[in-house]
């Protein structure tokens, strides 16, 4: 029986790994209710998982198309406001809110992309920076929908019209979406589109000579990145239950970028690792340290330095550390053998 399970696990990699990861994450509420870990840890982990979803979309954009989006926070914020408006103000079901709140930012993203992706890649970063400034203005000024600076509230989601989730239930929903997104990313990267994106990464000129439409693929990866940002926003809104304009500043977009760069570009597990480093370490470790913990900007400095150091000295991200450690360990081990023999 045990053997069968192991075989099943091995033959269905990496899906089985993803699902195992999901199951392990789902155990956290149980640990909280047993009193083994702190109540606030669930909130920290949930937000890390939400940012992982957002970062996975952006990883496709940065890793395969070599494009940077600085509108991540803006599109996430848009997702939060839309879903709050649709569920709380209009009283429509969560599922409909989810679809609309992902679709509308995606359309705006595609329009931005239509304009900026024709030209050099670095135009997208500037265009999305401008769009996110406009969005933040909208969050503040459209106060009949967004409530201005005082922010907007929503409730835990109600699935299918009758299944009212609580805090733990919403957490499980986030885990479910994360695993879904991980599987989707894995399939996409290994599909025809994924191979086309990989070719583009190698050489855009060669890719277009082979008949790959660069513009269309750039647009596609940007649309996916934006929709994952919005999905993250929707989940954020229904877990944190509160949104306000200053939550969606450039700094958040930069942190999400840091997740990918630090964790590992083009790596699903690297993205998750990066999210735990960028959003977990400041919350769980830096704030507890005696002197550093009391400094306001410590988390920013930590992440900023880490970005630069990783790019300069470890460009494939910290997820590759395990291979390097293994290699060095093997080398050390072999040398020891040589000396003995």
């Amino acid at each position, binding site marked *: 029986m045990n053997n069968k399970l192991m075989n099943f696990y091995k033959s269905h990699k990496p899906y089985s790994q993803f699902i195992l990861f999901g199951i392990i994450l789902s155990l956290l509420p149980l640990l909280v209710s047993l009193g083994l870990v702190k109540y606030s840890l669930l909130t920290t982990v949930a937000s890390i998982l939400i940012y992982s979803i957002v970062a996975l979309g952006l990883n496709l954009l940065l890793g395969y198309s070599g494009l940077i989006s600085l509108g991540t926070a803006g599109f996430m914020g848009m997702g939060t406001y839309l879903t709050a408006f649709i569920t709380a103000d209009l009283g429509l079901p969560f599922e409909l809110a989810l679809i609309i709140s992902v679709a509308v930012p995606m359309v705006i993203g595609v329009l931005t992309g239509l*304009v900026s992706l024709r*030209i050099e*890649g670095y135009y997208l970063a500037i265009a999305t920076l*401008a769009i996110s*400034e406009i969005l933040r203005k909208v969050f503040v000024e459209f106060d009949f929908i967004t409530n201005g600076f005082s922010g907007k509230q929503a409730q835990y989601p109600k699935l299918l019209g009758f299944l009212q989730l609580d805090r733990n239930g919403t957490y499980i929903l986030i885990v479910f979406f994360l695993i879904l997104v991980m599987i989707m990313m894995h399939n996409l990267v290994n599909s025809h589109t994924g191979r086309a994106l990989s070719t583009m990464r190698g050489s855009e000129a060669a890719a277009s000579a082979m008949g790959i439409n660069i513009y269309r693929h750039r647009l596609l990866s940007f649309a996916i990145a934006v929709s994952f940002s919005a999905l993250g926003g929707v989940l954020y809104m229904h877990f944190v239950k509160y949104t306000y304009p200053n939550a969606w500043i450039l700094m958040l977009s930069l942190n999400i*970028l840091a997740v990918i760069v630090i964790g590992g570009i083009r790596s699903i597990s690297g993205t998750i690792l990066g999210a735990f480093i960028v959003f977990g370490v400041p919350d769980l470790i830096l704030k507890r340290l005696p002197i550093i913990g009391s400094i306001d900007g410590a988390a920013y400095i930590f992440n*900023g330095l880490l970005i*630069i150091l990783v790019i300069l000295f470890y460009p494939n991200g910290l997820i590759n550390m395990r291979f390097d450690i293994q290699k060095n360990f093997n080398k050390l081990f072999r040398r020891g053998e040589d000396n003995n023999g």
Partner: protein
Amino acid sequence: MDIFVQILLNSLETGGIYALAALGIILIFRTSVTTNFAQGSISMFSAFLATIVLIRTGISPISAAIVGMIFALIIGVLVDFFVISRAQKVNPVSKQIITLGLIMIFLGLAPMLFGTDPLQFPRFVYGSYSFFGATISYNAIFNIVVGLALMGVLFFALQKTKWGLSVRATASNEVVARMMGIPTASVTRASWAIAAALGTLSALMLAPTNSVNLSMMDTVQVTALLACILGGFTSFYGAVIAAYLIGFASNLLSFYVSSIWSDSILYLLILTTILFKPTGLFGKKVIKKV
């Protein structure tokens, strides 16, 4: 008529602020092939330094501005020495990300060193002058003249001096320039220093109307980057002209359309413009060779 003159005068001042920041971004773009997103944060940081010096020592605002610009030169050199010069082999996208990492560092350091409260930076000169029914403060005239003069000197230097020639050579092809004996590393370092100083001046010109705070340069940063897009990244003067155009359009829009939405409308207008003119108003089309 008098309103129009007033708008024109205001535009010269705001346009000058954008132009200084945009010129810094272009200078770095041409020598290090990266869009420097940290321009605004470095300027904000040096503006804080200048203001602190002003408050502690009580020197005149002009000397404080000069001290701030010297700090900025040093910061520019340090940034290049510790980060950018080590990232020569890094691809352009990662270089952009490095400048984004710099934003995080400066935005993290600023509240740590200077506190989170906004500081006040006074005008350089006081008093005002009216003609054609429009009023202009001496400070605005000072800003306009200093901005134009500084840009004039810089353009003259770019066109006529040996330094300018080496900057233009580095900009057009770094490898060939190095083979011709141009010290491209120090050219790049000088551009980072000058860009930081230009940005700091624009920050200090902006400071009296606003205050010295962490997000003071956000709008300027976005506008300057858009000015570079509108003017085209391929020329030095294009971005400067575009910056003045944007300053004018921004003042017109905020007077005649809406003061809240003027920036947003402007951003959308600029993005639509590049849909029809992808290389910018003054840009040349660069043909990629394989």
